[in-house]
């Protein structure tokens, strides 16, 4: 939970050596790949706009039961490992068609580094998660980094084995919700990070770390 400056530097170095994250793109379901809209090495964009109302770059066209669907990029980056052999072939669901090599932004670097500095609530099971309604409301109102939680508070609701199970904060202490690491309603693998919490008294220390990262890693 503690992170020392040398360690921070080490992490920063690691990211500097490889500031990328690979996002594989899977077919959401079966069907024929009718057309590729990108080639190897193309730059693609994720959804943009103030409300993310402008969809991402088209990647390929998947047709199933006479429905042609444009599969779009969910994140920005460079196309690699494009499986051209899938063209005009029937593909199974969840086949990896290509990968997007995404350059981490400053925000994302901070998130990644904070993983080792924050108290992380991990997914106890491979399941779908949502924030508990009262917490979601608070977060919407006050914003991230301001909402306080303490031992015994309901944090998340896990949809698992066809049931909804609440997840409570078991760690002693007063925490602030500092980072969210998951997308609601998505299947999250076991042990993946869900929420990053910070002890209230540790806040200034964290801000310092963030400041340092920001200095070391200016936003482009």
């Amino acid at each position: 939970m503690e992170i020392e400056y040398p360690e921070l530097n080490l992490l920063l170095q690691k990211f500097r050596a490889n500031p990328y994250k690979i996002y594989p793109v899977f077919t959401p379901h079966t069907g024929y790949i009718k057309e590729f809209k990108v080639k190897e090495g193309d730059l693609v964009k994720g959804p943009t706009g103030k409300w993310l109302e402008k969809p991402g770059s088209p990647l390929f066209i998947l047709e199933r039961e006479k429905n042609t669907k444009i599969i779009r990029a969910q994140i920005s980056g460079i196309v690699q490992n494009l499986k051209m052999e899938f063209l005009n072939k029937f593909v199974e669901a969840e086949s990896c068609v290509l990968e997007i090599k995404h350059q981490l932004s400053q925000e994302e670097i901070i998130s990644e580094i904070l993983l080792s500095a924050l108290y992380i609530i991990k997914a106890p099971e491979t399941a779908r998660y949502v924030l508990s309604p009262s917490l979601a409301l608070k977060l919407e109102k006050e914003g991230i980094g301001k909402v306080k939680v303490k031992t015994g508070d309901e944090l998340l609701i896990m949809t698992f084995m066809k049931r909804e199970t609440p997840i409570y904060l078991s760690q002693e202490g007063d925490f602030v919700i500092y980072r969210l690491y998951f997308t609601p309603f998505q299947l999250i693998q076991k042990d993946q990070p869900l929420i990053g919490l910070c002890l209230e008294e540790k806040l200034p220390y964290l801000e310092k770390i963030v400041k340092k990262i920001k200095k070391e890693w200016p936003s482009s």
Partner: protein
Amino acid sequence: MKLDLHRKLKDLLDTATYIKDIKGEAFLNISLLIEKISEVYENFYQHDLNFIENFIIQVESEIKKIMDEAERTLTPYEIVKIVRHPQRFTLQDILENVYDSYMELGGEGEINIDPAIVCAKAIIIRKVRNDLYFHQVMVIGHEKGHGEEFRQGGSAKPWGNEKALRFMQMAETEGIPIHFYIFTPGAYPIEDYPGSAQQIARNLYYMTKLKVPTVALISEGGSGGAEAIGLTDMRLMFEKGYYSVISPEGAAAIEAKIRDGRPPRELVEKCAKALKLTAKDNLEFGLIDRIVPEPPLGARKRDYEFFKKLKLELIKATDEIVLQTRSLKFLRKYTLSKQSTEDFKFYINWDLDEDEIEILIENRWEKYKKMSQWAVCEPKNVIKSFFNFSRSWGLKFKNELKYRILKPSHKTFKKFLDELTTESSLLFKPVSDPVKTVYNLIVGKKIKSKIPTPILIEEETSPYRSPLALEDKTITCPQAEKYGCPDLWVPDLYGEYCGVCPNCGYHFLLEYKWYLNNIFDKNSIKPFNDYIASGNPLEFEGYAEKLKEARKKTNLRSALLTFEAKIGGISLVAVMLIGDFRQGTVGVAEGEKFIRAIEFAKITRRPFLALVHTTGGIRIHEGTLGLIQMPRCTIAVRDYVDAGGLYIVVYDNNSFAGPVASFLGCAPYQFALKSTRLGFAGPRVIRETIGQEIPPDYHSAENALKRGHIQGIWDRRELRKKLFTALLTMGGKNLYYR
């Protein structure tokens, strides 16, 4: 003396610049003249007096010539430019020059709930021989300002119009006439509470029965924004004003199907001409009562003569309204006699008594009912119209007798009987029973102790298969990414699911026939007034072909279907705006059909349902003749609702602009289906007017519900059931009419 000349020169320079602004740089070497004047003006003190005096005389005569020529060749688009020019007179100028004193209510420049709307209490003095008479009036109007940013060019925000409404009500309480001044390019298109459309609809609805004389003066009559304070007893228009359903630029953008950027100038000029937006055109159409003359190229801030004339026109107009409620003979004498500002021949008291108020409101209704009727296209078949006439009179007589004369006594008796039986049912049973029998003998029918509730049976609707459902394919729900909806098989989607995604409830577009077949009882639909057709009263170029195409495509004559129908055995009159016919826009035919349908519902004492398949607003190709349907239909709605009618509006798909800001939006009970987009102006117009992007859900039904525009969101799959429940619980068999 020299200072005077300097000022005079400055005026001339202003005038020349003004001419240039209106007519363009190339007009009769005006640029050259401006150069010449400014040269002299700038080096004023180097020239001698004589030279300047001569120069002024020469320039004056030159300008006069140019002015006359400019006036002679004035085009509609140039009139639009005059109206928008910062040198044109504003409401502030009128308040200062026409009224003898005034006090602005609720605002000082920028410190105002909405600086685009000015309300003021004002005194106007009438001089009759040696006596002075003081009239108090309420002045409400748009303030364009001379270029101040915060006035928004006279675009009233919803709360500005609300302020206007508040002071209309105050004037009503005080019994003083209201003078409205319309200087607006259109309402400010935002949906903040209560939404532009809702507020305009509320204003219109209230103005229909305002109990004081009202006069409107139109300088810039831009669409719905103008109507918000434009439903009046007397409508005057300035000679160089324009009154239009849409700005020429807006019309051009629509005509050229432009999404972003500016339409070409030639098209804008063409549209300005085609829209027939000048005072002369509007007078010819019978949409205004008189034109207030202006000096060549329009009145400006300092045209004091003009203000004097305006004062006279105002007093005369108010007098006439008042006299119309009194003696027609005197009115005739009054209009024939010559009046002038300095010396009025008559003093007329502007207070109205109860009877006069009733006549005033009746006159207003009659006036609007007649408007645009000449443009209605229906076959002139004498026998048929005679038959219709006698039929409607027959119906009226029958229903008057049934509801007005028989029902009250029937009701009183039933009440008495109910009291008798319920209060002491045991004790009085032997007593009340014979009474019942006697009553039944006389009236000829049994008094039922329990009203049988109509029931809704599913099989009562006709089996109908949407043509959309015939293809073996699947489609993706637009909200799939957000809610993870599976792809939908088209025959299921457009069949059993009623075009609704079963996972997220997204409503897909369905053809209008679906509604006719799935909401109403089988074989209960009886259309009427089918023969009224949309025409081309403005002879708008290319519109006739578009109409023909729409008629061919839909097999309909107008975008509004009016019919009688039943839901679960409850009989009602319904109208439906159909999106396939010119995007469900409203013109003369639609307005006329709406009014006839709602009057029919009133005569036959039935509930009235307006279904909106889609409406894109007022049809721009019919210009102000279309626009006038907003107040016309609203008066009809008010008349129906005040008579006790149940008026329900249900929106689906897209509902925007004029109709929502008037006869639909004024309904007490409005509902929307789930994926409806509803509001005043579309995203493009908003972006261009307020220069901001709006969130994607800005016009969603949820937001409309949140700000109180609609009273509920319905699911299309339950539409029939919901309507039935609504008719039962909000009306009740004997409650449709009070």
